[in-house]
């Protein structure tokens, strides 16, 4: 789709500056695309070629313009070009290496643009020749590996990663990229790890390395054994894991910062003079201005790490000072600082700078907090496709986290208290919460806040059913953990209860619209069962006896909603139809809620009558509740504390396939070799050679 444009763009961008050199190299390219071996006439042809500045556009266009016959004619020469590129990578002359890398890029891209319809095997044949493909790719990967791991130039390493990203994203669907089969066989996983574990390398190339890894992991994920999946899942090297966490954390922090800057810009400029009432009318505009391009690639990397690697969970809680400034260390801190204790080797950069910067305003943060903040921004607006996907991915990651016992342990750790300033959508009926007043609490409170916030803010016509399901499931998983481990979290559960009741109310009032698209009974069942958890197991995880009373109070107060829900599900379940079964489940699940309502409502009414009070205060109702527990019998429901564990395979596969496709497109767009301008490279290498 955009390939033509892009090509044009590339031409336009560089043509002016590169004209003087174009002639010679173009001539040489032309020589390749004839039948004869160019080396025949000029034995030093290849040597000379790699001393020339590469003309990517021309090469790519040329490759693209070849038709079937020409392909067969020039195949040997293209093979030869590829072969010499790979050979040149091993040379010491760095300019030649750079040119070879760029030529390879052009080859991969050109061939793919041309052969959109052609199968992967044709491409391999055209580039390398079937018989030699394995050998060529092995050499290529080995060269790249040693360039990445060696002590060589930073720009060269960057270029290697660009080449790999280019190779990985040449096809829209990564799994159709047959060349990657060789990347599976000749793993560069270790090179990626090394980049992540090394301080200076991580600063410069960490981002590309993480994205590359995330993409590679998604190659034929469900069909074959992907060695990157296997290796990622068993990796347990602490510095590397930390490094990966830092890269992800930094990217997310950067996003959060950009968003905040934009938000402040908007508030400062335009809204400050308007009242909040008027201002809220413009929110739609503001939202568009506020939208910063989300970064699904890095989020995917976070997901893969959390999902595949058990050990990565610990990295989430690894606290580090909040880095507000995008810090790509300009000067490599290559000399490992002498470890004061002299025993263990240094591990990571932030970890290693012997002292943390002394800034009282600097909040201690960790990857999880950064991620929660990021999620809160992304979830605010789920209107466009990208953001919806981002929000979904955020919720999937949270699901994985909520299922993990260790993650739960530190989420609930009473000793790890943090202030997490979640972003809240400005809404008409509420003021923007004063951010500074967020108390310092265990992290799970922030997760619950985020879920409550989502529930409250997304009751709209275009109902994100899937997100709601995930959201309620996350809450359920957290409560299951609390129940199991008897953790009495001091959380204002009331907010959650009222949010859930409001959700039920919304489902009821939009029944017809929603039923056309979604199975709302499933969601309703989950919500009611959350209440059942509180009702039957409240003694194991509620923080105070009063909170149990408050639960009853809330249910009784909002009894109308439950009554209506019951009527609705009863109606649906008595009619035959596709919703009969799910609706009847909801009917059953409501038994305790209804018992409570039916038990206490008359008691409260009679209390009011006896005392001649028209409107009972909360305390009075609570008093009635307290004194009437003993005559209420509840039914113990099965399986309230059971849940289906998250699994990617059947259900989410399609989502991830699409996600990876969109990430691939995005990465391809952004990997421009011209960003790494040849001038910079040449300048660098002129001093070397």
């Amino acid at each position: 789709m955009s390939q033509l444009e892009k090509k044009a763009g590339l031409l336009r961008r560089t043509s002016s500056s590169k004209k003087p050199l174009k002639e010679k190299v173009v001539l040489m390219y032309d020589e390749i695309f004839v039948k004869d071996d160019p080396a025949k006439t000029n034995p030093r042809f290849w040597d000379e070629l790699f001393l020339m500045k590469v003309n990517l556009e021309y090469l790519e266009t040329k490759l693209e313009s070849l038709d079937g016959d020409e392909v067969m004619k020039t195949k040997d020469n293209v093979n030869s070009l590829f072969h010499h590129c790979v050979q040149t990578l091993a040379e010491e002359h760095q300019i030649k290496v750079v040119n070879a890398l760029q030529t390879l890029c052009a080859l991969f891209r050109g061939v793919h643009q041309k052969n959109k319809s052609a199968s992967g095997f044709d491409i391999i044949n055209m580039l390398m020749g079937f018989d030699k493909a394995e050998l060529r790719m092995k050499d290529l990967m080995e060269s790249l590996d040693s360039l990445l791991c060696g002590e060589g130039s930073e720009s060269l390493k960057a270029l290697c990663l660009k080449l790999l990203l280019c190779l990985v994203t040449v096809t829209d669907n990564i799994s159709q990229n047959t060349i990657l089969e060789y990347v599976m066989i000749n793993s560069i996983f270790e090179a990626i790890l090394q980049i992540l574990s090394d301080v200076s390398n991580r600063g410069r190339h960490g981002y590309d390395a993480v994205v590359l890894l995330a993409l590679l992991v998604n190659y034929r994920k469900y069909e074959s054994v992907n060695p990157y999946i296997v290796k990622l899942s068993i990796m347990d090297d602490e510095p590397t894991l930390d490094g990966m966490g830092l890269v992800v954390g930094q990217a997310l922090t950067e996003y959060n910062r950009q968003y905040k800057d934009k938000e402040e810009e908007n508030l400062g400029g335009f809204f400050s003079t308007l009242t909040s009432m008027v201002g809220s009318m413009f929110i739609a505009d503001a939202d568009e201005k506020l939208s910063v391009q989300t970064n699904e690639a890095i989020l995917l990397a976070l997901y893969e790490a959390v999902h595949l690697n058990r050990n990565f969970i610990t990295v989430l809680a690894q606290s580090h000072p909040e880095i507000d400034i995008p810090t790509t260390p300009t000067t490599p801190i290559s000399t490992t600082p002498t470890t004061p204790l002299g025993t263990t080797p240094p591990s990571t950069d932030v970890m290693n700078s012997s002292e943390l910067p002394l800034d009282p305003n600097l909040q201690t943060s960790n990857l999880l907090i950064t991620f929660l903040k990021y999620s809160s921004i992304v979830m605010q607006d789920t209107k466009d496709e990208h953001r919806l996907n981002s929000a979904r991915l955020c919720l999937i990651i949270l699901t994985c986290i909520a299922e993990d016992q260790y993650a739960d342990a530190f989420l609930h750790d009473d000793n790890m208290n943090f202030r997490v300033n979640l972003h809240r959508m400005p809404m008409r009926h509420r003021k923007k919460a004063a951010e500074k007043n967020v108390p310092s609490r265990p992290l799970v409170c922030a997760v619950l806040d985020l879920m409550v916030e989502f529930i409250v803010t997304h009751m709209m016509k275009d109902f994100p059913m899937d997100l709601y399901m995930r959201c309620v499931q996350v809450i359920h998983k957290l409560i299951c953990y609390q129940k199991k481990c008897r953790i009495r979290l001091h959380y204002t559960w009331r907010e959650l209860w009222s949010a859930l009741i409001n959700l039920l109310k919304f489902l009821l009032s939009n029944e017809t619209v929603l039923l056309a698209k979604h199975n709302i009974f499933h969601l309703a069942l989950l919500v009611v069962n959350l209440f059942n958890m509180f009702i039957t197991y409240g003694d194991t995880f509620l923080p105070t006896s009063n909170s149990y009373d408050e639960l009853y109070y809330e249910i009784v107060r909002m009894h109308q909603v439950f009554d209506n829900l019951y009527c609705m599900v009863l109606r649906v379940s008595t009619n035959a139809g596709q919703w009969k079964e799910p609706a009847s489940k909801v009917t059953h699940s409501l038994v305790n809620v209804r018992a409570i309502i039916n038990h206490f409502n008359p008691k409260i009414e009679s209390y009011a009558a006896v005392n001649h009070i028209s409107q009972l205060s909360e305390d009075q109702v609570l008093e009635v509740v307290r004194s009437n527990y003993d005559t209420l019998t509840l039914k113990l429901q099965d399986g309230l504390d059971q849940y289906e564990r998250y699994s990617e395979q059947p259900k989410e596969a399609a989502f991830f396939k699409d996600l990876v496709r969109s990430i691939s497109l995005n990465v391809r767009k952004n990997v421009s070799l011209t960003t790494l301008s040849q001038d910079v490279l040449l300048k660098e290498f002129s001093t070397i050679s």
Partner: protein
Amino acid sequence: MGDMEQEQSAARTEELQQHTPSTASSVSISSSPSQSLSSSPSSGPYHHHQPTSSSPTDSDSPGAPSPTLDVISEGLTELTLVIDPEVAKKACQEVLQKVKLLQGEGEGSEGGPDHTLVNGTVHNKPTDTAAAGGGGIIKPRRIHEEDDPDSLTPGSVKSARRRQRHNPSKQSWLLRLFESKLFDVSMAISYLHNSKEPGVQAYIGNRLFSFRHEEVDFYLPQLLNMYIHMDEDVGDAIKPYVVHRCRQSISFSLQCAWLLGAYSSDMHISTQRHSRGTKLRKLIFSDELKPSGVRARQPLTLTPFNPLPTATPALHGHGVGAEHSLSPTKRTHQRSKSDATVSISLSNNLKRTASNPKVESSQDEPVRLTPQREFIKSLMGIGKRLATLPTKEQKTSRLISELSLLNHKLPARVWLPTAAFDHHVVRVPHTQAVVLNSKDKAPYLIYVEVLECEDFETSNVPVRISETRIRSTRSVENLLDCGITADQRAGSFSTVPNYDDDNEAWSVDDIGELQVELPELHTNSCDNISQFSVDSITSLDNKEPIFIAAGDIRRRLSEQLAQTPTTFRRDPEDPSAVALKEPWQEKVQRIRECSPYGHIPTWRLLSVIVKCGDDLRQELLASQVLQQLQVIWEQERVPIWIKPYKILVTSSDSGMIEPIVNAVSIHQVKKQSQMSLLDYFLQEHGIHTTEAFLTAQRNFVQSCAGYCLICYLLQVKDRHNGNILLDAEGHIIHIDFGFILSSSPRNLGFETSAFKLTSEFVDVMGGLGGDMFNYYKMLMLQGLIAARKHMDKVIQIVEIMQQGSQLPCFHGSSTIRNLKERFHMSLTEEQLQVLVEQMVDCSMRSITTKLYDGFQYLTNGIM
């Protein structure tokens, strides 16, 4: 000249080392003088340069330059030899000669110093034949020869000798005392401090070697303070012992160095730089006292003063202990170098492997003091940085991240000096650390995971287990135990059949089914399955329903909330309250489960308070007095309970404190519980008549009596509820001895009451007239009588520390006199009883009249 000699001696040392241990042992074992002289290879080289360093007296004693003397002079490299070692030796031997004389061992070689000096080893003969008691005395003499080449000025020695000659009887009594079994460290320190006779001081210096290490360690602050601030004779007497111990132990070295620094700090800066204390400190830090070179020769120095290993128990213990610690150390050290180099190369190769836990495997530090110093330094650094942050919350979160960085450098050959056993620190569970309450400083409490080991100097440093390994030890099954004890679970969930009116129709089968189900609910299995079974919520209709009463759920909730040991509410302004309230055992269990090292059997949890910016010297002094009093009361069988806690002084403004576990301050108790102390006791321990309450009450009374006495004797001021802890058993424990003796807050003079006794305290004791209150007063009286009996031991601790000290507690000139007066030596027991009554009365009413006035009147009236 001195330098020259040092170099030479160093060279000689190496030579000596090469001369196989057998020579060394032959020297040491020999009891016959001739053998010992001839067989020592080092005496040869020694003679070469002896004249350069030694004085004319050298010629007096041709036999004197023994190999051992040579050895030690190398050890004292930093000293310039201005004093003739032979003179020192003479003086010392004179004293010992007296001993021999008194022993009347038939030797007859009495009196003449010339005789003695003819041959340095002459005394071995009598020793060999001597009774058990003699061995202990001879042994130190040898040390002295070796260790103290430069102790005394000739003048003083001569005068001492003269005096000795003139008062043989006095001397003999003294010596008889010295050699008696009653002579303990306390007396040794006392004589060292009080005696003006260099000979006696030198003798005691040697005698120190015969005491057990722990005994002397108690008086280390005193010893070092004397070393710093008293005249040279005392210092010279102490030094050999200190140097000897430093060589043996890193821990001792560091402790010495820290104390030396702290106690030198009051000196004027110019004198401080050249003071002996500073020099010794530098020597220790320069790590020249390392055992590497010395250890090879250790048997040489060791065995001579241990000719009869079984002679005295103390001696025996010492010898064995020393040998234990020495020989393996040497071995380790040799290995250590290769280990270190190997691991360095390893750590560089760390890159390519995905997981390499073995990289940080055991390695010894080439520089033996550095890791520990760095460890302490970084802890102090954290404290300094925390102090700059404005709020508790920021401090806490910064502390956590700082400690998590520290974790990356552990395990290492570092340890907590406050601990009672040898260990290596492997991890700081950083999330457990809390900042303590303090206005401008930032003391903080950390928990430290350690692995117990044989000897922290020689045992291998544990291999680092990465934090991620926790996953393997923390499977779902293990997790279930976390936080829930068995009985808690048992009581937690029971579906009680409800025979409500509408449930009459229940069949027997239903109940049977329930009963089958019950045990399952009790066990973990139910929960286990729940996480994984996809078998979901649909089975409702299949089974007969189980009914539960809402009232039961509510009741269980409140019961369990009441049952769980009352926890404190988290308060960002007082983060330590919650952390300290948690019962220690539970905390240990909890942290152990979360630690990657938790599965190792030698895993232990320690805690320590890091104080930065606070002078802990007074705390140390108070702690010593408390320990002494505790011993006294135990000895005299007074059932008073006090809890001295360990103090580590690392400089004059930093240090570490061993926290008291299971104790929170009364302030925190009252703030959190919002009730009176008595009600809190009732809540925590049960009603008045329960045994638990009575035990707690007794504990309270016994500890209260102890601390009231201490507050009176030491004049502990600034007693507010934040400085008084209450432990889980009901004991009170006073902390923070920042204002004692002559100092009080803002120096407004004495607080009027003798100690803090509020009506709340009295209420806990059961009121004014109650038995327990009388018991309390009786304990005070008994305690005071017992303390009075051993007053000297207490006074001495304080008095020595007054030397050269600028500490506020020594302000004024009458500190010691006043302290002595508070023991009321002149009163009869009846009068003491009146005094106690008076003090209690006075404290109760907090009358502003001076206690002492009233008492004066009373006593004067009687007298």
